[in-house]
């Protein structure tokens, strides 16, 4: 059974159709990378998967269960309240610009959702949060506030915050696009280490070597459709004009 299935998804913003009938699925422990030029609909696809945007056509399934869909007559069916929170507990999302809570310390950013939303024991949550920070190489930053962190550190805190809730699948929306090359390296290293944990990941990224190295499956999107997909080698070696042009541009 797939962890996530998105079937025949379409999405428009006013007149602009940014996703045109795309389907994808993610299995347990699988790492899927979505690459493609800016504006190709990669991030929108992620935002649809995480319920931040509503789809115009298609259906989304988590763990085989249909959680959001559009009826024949165009009615959108989305979970609400407790049901929505249950669906959201299946996944975590790491944003391009972190979205840490600035008024909470690093530790509280990670702990507060555990304690307040998952009703877990405070002591145990703190222990786990500190262990996660340690894993991220940020053990000494527990009491710092987000404004005192570098971009790379912020992003690692954001990853720890998402991991703390034990998601089955972790989404990354261009996690390094706001970072310089050095900071990018430290964040990518952390993400790579997660792949060893065997947690399923969906990564929207412009880091081609990283995507090629880490992924089980790669999707190349352009103008709202999937142009090429397959194993990293299949995709990166594909004799696809648009794909090669995209990669070629990156080498300048």
């Amino acid at each position: 059974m797939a962890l996530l299935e998105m079937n025949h998804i379409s999405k428009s913003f006013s007149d602009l159709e940014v996703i045109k009938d795309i389907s994808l699925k993610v299995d347990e422990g699988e790492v899927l990378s979505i690459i493609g030029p800016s504006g190709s609909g990669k991030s929108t696809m992620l935002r649809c998967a995480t319920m931040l945007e509503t789809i115009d056509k298609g259906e989304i399934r988590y763990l085989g269960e249909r959680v959001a869909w559009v009826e024949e007559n165009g009615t959108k069916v989305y979970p609400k309240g407790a049901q929505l929170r249950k669906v959201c507990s299946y996944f975590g999302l790491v944003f391009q610009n972190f979205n840490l809570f600035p008024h909470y310390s690093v530790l509280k950013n990670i702990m507060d959702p555990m304690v307040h939303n998952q009703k877990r024991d405070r002591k145990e949550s703190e222990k786990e949060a500190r262990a996660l920070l340690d894993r991220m190489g940020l053990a000494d930053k527990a009491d710092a506030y987000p404004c005192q962190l570098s971009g790379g550190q912020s992003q690692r805190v954001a990853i720890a915050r998402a991991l703390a809730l034990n998601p089955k699948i972790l989404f990354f929306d261009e996690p390094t696009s706001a970072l310089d090359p050095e900071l990018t390296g430290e964040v990518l290293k952390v993400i790579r280490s997660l792949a060893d944990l065997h947690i399923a990941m969906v990564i929207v990224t412009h880091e081609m070597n990283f995507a090629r190295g880490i992924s089980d499956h790669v999707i190349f999107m352009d103008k709202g459709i999937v142009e090429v997909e397959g194993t990293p080698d299949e995709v990166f070696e594909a004799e696809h004009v648009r794909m090669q042009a995209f990669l070629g541009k990156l080498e300048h």
Partner: protein
Amino acid sequence: MSFQVMMEQLAGGLMKSISIFLLTLLFSLPLGLLVSFGRMSKNRIIRSVVWVFISILRGTPLMLQLLAVYFGPYYLFNLKIGSTWRFTAIIIAFSVNYSAYFAEIYRSGIESMPPGQYEAAKLLGYSRSSTFMRIIFPQVVKRILPSVTNEVITLVKDTSLAFSLAYAEMFTIAKQIAAKETSFMPFIAAAIFYYVFNAVVAFLMERIEKALNYYT
């Protein structure tokens, strides 16, 4: 009248000014938040009604609103106006008037919050109400504090408008003494009292701002 008696009477008036000030804040700050929710409501009718409410309260003099609240029950419903009603009417008029200003301040703060904060909170499992109470509101407070300080300082001086209902707050008393003694002294003393009152308020607000400076 000796200087000491004058000061005592003014101090008594100051206490009443302070009680108007504190009660108005106590009621208008929460009421303002409620009004701001109405102002931002998805329901068009609620939104329009609240818009009109704010527009009238900000568009007419507070002194006129004081008179309207105080005499309204008599002119509208022929009710007898009792002696305790004066103070109640003052608190109602001030609270409602200030809630309109605070509502717009809250709205500016709430609307300035980046959507990413709501999105992160949603995906981390916060309910709508906890998102507001735990994530959004604390940050809004920090953002709007300078504007709130402005309003609060204005309120200190506005308490003197209770004079229009002959309520014995500091300004009313100063004017009475001044008329009786044909002296300008009471006004100078009252001015100093208001100034010190405001200095204390400004100092406290600055302390709160500093206390919230631990993050940006």
